[in-house]
């Protein structure tokens, strides 16, 4: 093809794409004269070039479009129909360009229709300043035959008419010129290079890197050789060359997104919906090859969102959503990958429909489908033919969509996943390796096998030894490393990859590779660490791509193939909720306790000695002073008639004696119809204190001690006495084995110790967990609970995160969840419900808690019935 023509086509296509998106922007900001000037200038340039290359159809079209755009400058109101018309014209121009490319010449055809419309619109509401030339047309006739080279009068007339006259106002052109001159300067600083040339360059550099690696490997084996110095120099130069070449291939992802604003605009109009497109991270750079391959998948997904995801305005209004639906595109770098998300706030995926379609298509049996979680069902959309759209629309729904998207993404070594919440929306997450090229990697070994860890993910390396400065410590069974002020969760690589002897999975010696994913740090324990090597990343074979632990594989300098670890995949092993898991605790202690625990109302009393004791006021039902004469003794126990029942009196400690005469102060604890009383000598005070309790394990009946009003005060363990009172008196009416299993999650030992006995006395088999993480671990390991009660404010995995995790797992999705907290704002309550809790009880409301539990238990029972 003609060199000139080819350049023209490339440039014009690019310009047209820019005009497309600029027009859409302009439509949203009609007062932005800068955008308008930009558009005008681009179209003007195209027109000029068309004329220069003798492409009359194109020239005429662009001229008519330019005229209309010029009218906008004169003050013509920017209407949707006007913009649509121009966009249609641009499409026609693109069609002609395509035909031009194939045939080397403009196709035959007329654009009279469009030109007429453009002209008509331009004439409408023409600015008052425009002048019409008027005058009489005199019919003239030449009275002789034409000589060669002469044109008829009509032709001349026509030529005269069609030639654009001077535009009424020229400010645009004036400003256009300086801009163009400035442009020219910029343009000369960049040049066009054939993509093939760059490819070739890239391949050569890769080969160079591999050869250099081999040389380095050989040189390493020799202690002293003249090769070392030049080899180092070579290595350095190669690294720089590699970096430079890679830069040439990187382009911002915004380039792939360029056409999307216009697409969304057109789709909105076509479908009669209101859709807004948000783009974040357009400057994120990625390899050009990769960029080309994701353009189509992204377009398809945006179409799908618009067509199937976003609902019609009426539907959205009815659902309480804003009428305008949003499709959000975002891109960011993360650990050697680029992560792209396509999210919409539409109606989400219909799991039931997918399930039904999977069944009818014979993709899975009924029993197999029953075992699947929603997330697994949603992944069926990536199978060929799985469109669940009721009507095959023009845009999508032909059922050939998502499977092609997935295979496109597969081909570049990427992965795609989907998360959808019914009524709320859908998010597609695409992860693509940053380059099909070279990265720096640390070679490590676990159980005799070598792996590569991308250097970019390695924060630090720490040597651990059983007796050394840094060692693996354990909290219960969870391995952690104390690193400066932080506790780092650890994962043993050999255990994670199931290598080697199961008995030796978690040794004491080795190296910890400290890595960071998102905001969290964690450590990977390996046996040995070798050197850092530049490796050529090769994408995983399709049959291995599902293994999240690896992001690719490579050939080392010695010819061995090794897997490249993916820190994201490893971090995901810490639980389905990516949480810190272990609190980041400073040596000073737990200072960041939340507000609700900072002050508590305490009832201070004396019983048996002068040393003050205290009990949380909210646990106490009533303070009583009774006449000792109403106390009776039955079967060795002190009791009294209290509100129609017999209430046992318990002495908290051996030294406590019931008074001989007079009035006896009592702390009454009631639970429904049962009450018990603690005998005390004297009620001292009620104080509101911030207290830090030191939990002691030792004396029965004492939870621990704290400083209350400047004095060391024993905190009484009420829970200790309740079963004494009731077990002895009323007996446990519920036999042990049919007790409902309750899981109590709270990070404060104090509150666990207070609540657990209360709940046990109420007839539940209580298991406690000290963190959301531990609770989740218990459930994951197979323990089943009928009810879960959880604190909200906990470090690591808090109550909300725990609820969400439990809800997303089929096994626990239906388990009643009750939240405990002191913050009872409406927003909080909403958040709590959103996360999946069934009920919400204030922390010290013991009776409320028991009532809530009972209500949930009954609900479950009646559902099962």
């Amino acid at each position, binding site marked *: 093809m003609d060199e000139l023509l080819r350049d023209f086509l490339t440039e014009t296509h690019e310009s047209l794409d820019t005009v497309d998106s600029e027009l859409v922007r302009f439509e949203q900001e009609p007062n932005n004269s800068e955008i308008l000037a930009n558009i005008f200038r681009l179209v003007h340039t195209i027109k000029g070039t068309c004329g220069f290359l003798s492409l009359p159809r194109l020239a005429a079209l662009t001229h008519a479009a330019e005229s209309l755009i010029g009218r906008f400058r004169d003050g013509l109101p920017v209407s949707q129909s006007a913009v649509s018309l121009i966009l249609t014209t641009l499409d026609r121009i693109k069609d002609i360009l395509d035909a031009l490319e194939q045939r080397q010449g403009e196709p035959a055809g007329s654009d009279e229709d469009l030109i007429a419309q453009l002209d008509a619109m331009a004439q409408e509401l023409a600015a008052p300043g425009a002048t019409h030339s008027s005058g009489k047309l005199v019919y003239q006739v030449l009275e002789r035959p034409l000589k060669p080279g002469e044109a008829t009068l009509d032709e001349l007339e026509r030529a005269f008419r069609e030639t654009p006259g001077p535009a009424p106002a020229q400010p645009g052109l004036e400003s256009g010129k300086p801009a163009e001159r400035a442009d020219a300067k910029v343009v000369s600083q960049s040049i066009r290079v054939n993509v093939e040339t760059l490819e070739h360059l890239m391949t050569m550099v890769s080969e160079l890197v591999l050869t250099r690696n081999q040389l380095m490997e050989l040189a390493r084996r020799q202690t002293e050789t003249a090769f070392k110095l030049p080899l180092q120099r070579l290595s350095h130069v190669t690294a720089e060359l590699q970096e430079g070449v890679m830069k040439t291939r990187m382009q911002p992802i915004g380039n792939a997104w360029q056409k999307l604003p216009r697409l969304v605009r057109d789709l909105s109009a076509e479908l009669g919906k209101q859709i807004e497109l948000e783009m974040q991270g357009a400057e994120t750079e990625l390899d050009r090859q990769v960029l080309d391959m994701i353009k189509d998948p992204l377009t398809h997904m945006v179409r799908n969102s618009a067509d199937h995801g976003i609902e019609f305005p009426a539907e959205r209004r009815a659902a309480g959503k804003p009428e305008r639906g949003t499709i959000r595109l975002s891109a960011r770098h993360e650990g050697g990958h680029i992560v792209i998300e396509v999210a919409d706030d539409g109606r989400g995926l219909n799991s039931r429909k997918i399930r039904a379609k999977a069944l009818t298509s014979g993709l899975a049996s009924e029993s197999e489908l029953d075992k699947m979680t929603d997330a697994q069902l949603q992944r069926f959309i990536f199978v060929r033919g799985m469109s669940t759209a009721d009507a095959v629309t023009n845009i999508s729904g032909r059922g050939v969509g998502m499977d092609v998207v997935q295979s496109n993404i597969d081909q570049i070594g990427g992965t795609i996943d989907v998360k959808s919440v019914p009524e709320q929306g859908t998010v597609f997450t695409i992860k693509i390796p940053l380059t099909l090229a070279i990265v720096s990697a640390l070679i490590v070994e676990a159980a005799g096998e070598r792996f590569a860890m991308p250097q970019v993910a390695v924060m630090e390396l720490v040597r651990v030894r059983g007796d050394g400065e840094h060692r693996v410590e354990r909290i219960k069974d969870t391995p952690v490393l104390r690193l400066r002020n932080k506790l780092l969760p650890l994962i043993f690589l050999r255990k994670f990859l199931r290598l080697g002897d199961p008995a030796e999975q978690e040794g004491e010696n080795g190296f910890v590779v400290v890595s960071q994913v998102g905001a969290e740090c964690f450590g990977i324990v390996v046996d040995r660490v070798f050197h850092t090597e530049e490796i050529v990343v090769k994408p995983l074979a399709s049959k291995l791509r599902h293994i999240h*632990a690896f992001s690719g594989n490579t050939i080392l300098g010695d010819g061995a*193939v090794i897997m490249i670890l993916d820190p994201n995949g490893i971090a995901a092993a810490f639980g389905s909720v990516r949480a810190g898991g272990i609190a980041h605790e400073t040596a000073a202690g737990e200072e960041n306790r939340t507000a609700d625990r900072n002050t508590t109302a305490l009832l201070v009393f004396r019983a048996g000695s002068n040393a003050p004791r205290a009990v949380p006021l909210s646990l106490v039902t009533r303070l009583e002073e009774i006449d000792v004469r109403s106390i009776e003794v039955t079967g060795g126990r002190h009791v009294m008639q209290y509100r129609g029942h017999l209430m046992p009196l318990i002495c908290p400690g051996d030294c406590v004696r019931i008074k001989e005469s007079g009035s006896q102060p009592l702390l009454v604890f009631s639970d429904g119809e049962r009450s018990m009383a603690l005998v005390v000598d004297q009620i001292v005070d009620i104080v509101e204190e911030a207290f830090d309790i030191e939990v002691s394990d030792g004396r029965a009946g004492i939870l621990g001690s704290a400083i209350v009003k400047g004095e060391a005060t024993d905190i009484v363990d009420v829970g200790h006495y309740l079963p004494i009172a009731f077990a002895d008196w009323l007996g446990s009416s519920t036999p042990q084995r049919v007790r409902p299993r309750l899981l109590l999650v709270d990070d404060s030992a104090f509150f666990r110790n207070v609540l657990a006995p209360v709940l046990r006395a109420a007839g539940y088999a209580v298991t406690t967990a000290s963190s959301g993480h531990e609770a989740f671990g218990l459930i994951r390991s197979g323990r089943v609970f009928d009810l879960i009660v959880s604190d909200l404010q906990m470090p690591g995995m808090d109550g909300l995160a725990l609820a969400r995790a439990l809800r997303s797992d089929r096994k626990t999705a239906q388990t009643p969840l009750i939240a405990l907290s002191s913050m009872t704002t409406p927003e909080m309550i909403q958040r709590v419900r959103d996360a999946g809790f069934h009920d919400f009880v204030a922390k010290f409301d013991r009776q409320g808690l028991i009532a809530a539990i009972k209500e949930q238990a009954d609900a479950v029972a009646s559902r099962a019935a």
Partner: protein
Amino acid sequence: MPSPAGPPDAMQNTQQTASAEYVTVTVGTQLFGLPIARVQDVFVLSQITRVPLAPDDIAGVINLRGRIVTAIDLRRRLGLASDSGRTQMAVGIESDGESYGLAIDAVGEVLTLDVETAEPVPVNLDDRLRRVASGVHRLEHGLLVVLDVDKLLDLKPSELAA
């Protein structure tokens, strides 16, 4: 003479011409045949890198002249007991733009087999084998099981780790 409208399995074999060429390989004690059009090359399997967490059928990955090729343990795939420690051979095949090596015990000759000796797959054949076999040929000494390359490479989703 088997009738043209013969056994359904034979009909599904897309290579059904009067005679076809097969590369013969031995796995365990059984002789198998692979359509020659699908076989790229044959090579010695040295130094397989195991892939942790991969499905059992995948022996690992290997470096074949600078390319990373997925090695599939044909013994496991066919449900035979694994026999590690032996230097293995592999048959290189390509599918969907990717290269694979089928790890086998030994390679035999290339045979040209007529449709006359073809039989459908016996119904009492082991499940795993039946899924990937496309026919059986009667040879002078023994039987040859023809393998369907695409089915061999089609590891079902349920076999992939979550």
